[in-house]
């Protein structure tokens, strides 16, 4: 779905791919409103264009959960507080974490991951 013509839009270039992949950038045209966050745009993309986009967030807006970090135009940002501009914005996963998929990187404490539970495996 493209934005209604005549209204302001933002172009989001979003990195897509999995672990150890070169990946690619998908470009999405998103309707722009004053004050929007980058996360607002990513959530709009999931609802209206491509629900397979992997993003992580919880509190949406409050900057309380601290789980929505990504690289926005070469700066590490919380996507919930990074303001969107009606121009081209590039979003990619955090650089020093291993990629799970798309914008989601491995930020879970080691002892809280399923892979750390190896008791009684293999049913």
């Amino acid at each position: 779905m493209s934005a209604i013509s005549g209204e302001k839009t933002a172009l989001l270039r979003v990195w897509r791919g999995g672990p150890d992949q070169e990946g690619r950038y998908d470009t999405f045209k998103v309707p722009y409103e004053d004050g929007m966050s980058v996360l607002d745009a990513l959530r709009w993309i999931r609802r209206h264009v491509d629900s397979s986009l992997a993003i992580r967030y919880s509190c949406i807006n409050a900057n309380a959960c601290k789980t929505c970090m990504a690289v926005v135009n070469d700066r590490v940002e919380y996507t919930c507080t990074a303001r969107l501009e009606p121009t081209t914005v590039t979003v990619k996963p955090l650089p020093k974490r291993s990629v799970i998929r798309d914008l989601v990187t491995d930020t879970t404490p080691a002892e809280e991951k399923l892979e750390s539970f190896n008791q009684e495996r293999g049913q």
Partner: protein
Amino acid sequence: MTHLSTDVLIVGAGGAGMYAAIAAARNGSSVLLLDKSLVGRGGATIMAQMTVAAAISHQEPDHWTLHLADTKEAGRDICDGVLSEILCEDAPKRIHEMDQWGAHWAREEGHIKQVVAPGHSRSRCCYVDFLNTGPAVAGTLRRQVSKMETIKRLSNVAVTDVLVHDGQAVGAVGLDVIEGEVVTFEAKAVILAAGGLTKLYSRNSASTNMAGEAYALALWAGAELIDMEFVQFFPIAHLAPRLVGMDPIMWDPFRYKLGGRLLNGNFEEFIHLYGGSDAGKYTAVRDLASYAILKEVEAGRGSPHGGVYLDFSHLPEAELRGAFGPVIDRLLANGIDLTKMPIEVGPTAHYQMGGVRVNGRMETSVNGLYAAGEAVGGANGANRLSGNAISEALVFGERAGRFAAEQARHVTSAWNARLAAPAVDQVRTLQEHKGKSGVHPVTLQSELKDLMWENAGPFRTADKLTMSLARINEIQRHDFTDLAISRERQFNLDLQDWFELRAMLTTAEAVVTAALARTESRGAHQRLDFPDSDASFVKNQVLQLKNGRLTVGWTPVVQSQVKVVEI
């Protein structure tokens, strides 16, 4: 497939779940604490910027029975006496314990500082500066949880089903969203601490995690729900200008400390027209304030974004900065200068008073299945006081953990892998499912959220409720059965959305069914076609699934008989 076993399994790791984990562990149980986000980071607790009510008598003389009297008054005659007594009597213990664990409650002159929130007759509400109560509570509990070796934490796992055998909860099935792997859990007791249902509404104040899973999981397991018609709409959530990096309900603490004036679109005060009072003081309780605001909007006297104005421009900047320091700069960065402009506020879905029906031991009607926190229904009746939600999370969490540990000492595991097979197959089927409709779960979630906001929100009528119930049932029978799920294995949100939507539909059906059956207005449940309270409805509504159908029953209110100790 991974299989994990534990004494006590806890679904949800907000305030209630983490406190339950600590209590179960110190009562001798091994604990597995699950969260579909990250432990201690998702859910409602971390977003609570406001206060925690407890009669600790630091600010002024107080008594838990006074807290109880205020809670009952706000609850419009239908609070479950057993639960509200426990809430008010135990809250001071939890505040003191949290203090020992380093929660850093705001202090003055050596004592914990307490403020009055609307509906409280004493200065009773503790907080952490600045607007940091929730993160401080979550952080404190998280630190305690990580110190206890018998608590294992598992993040990124959404529980899809609780397993019951011969009337006994024996475990659960979950989906690890990171790897797309099914996990089965074997437990002697299961605690539902997955919070509320704010995600059912397009306008809501909470995190994205709470899609009513606790209620749906309870119903599917055979447990009862109580008073599901009572969804609290927070009256003065932020509407405009667009504000990022702040909780939309942040204006409540501003009003505690600074008063502020609530004005309609013509910049006139209006709360007094609806039986409350405002006049620069924050005294109107939530149901009354939401009602007054929406009535003004309906009469064409709203603000441009469909709410009203909240104004602090009569206050000097020094007073604003004294009360909220760095927050004033965060507002300026959002283009909001409170000394010059009002902001727009309006009602938004905030909290569920109803929920899983439990006794004073937090036991549901299913042996071995417990609930804690917002998931529990009844303590707050038809309307919750500000400050009671975190108290409830801590108090009910502690009790659920303690009694679940007791249960775990007395039962042996009745696990049987065959019980898990249908739930496991469901995940596998979806992972292979193509879906011809082309509609993804997130799209249907949006439709359901709009449907609930428009028809089962702050104002209700039989026509709108009936229409929305018909659409919910149609979605369940048709649209839901052939959704498109993307094929990626790792972090597949379509798959997580599908399970969320399944729970949202069940919980929405429960809310709408209960709202239809209560043909009166009381507290947060406002029926435009039955505008008055009806004494014959001083009773609690009980929902249960029988042969796949939701049944409605009524039960007399267990009224608290405790005498108020006047101080």
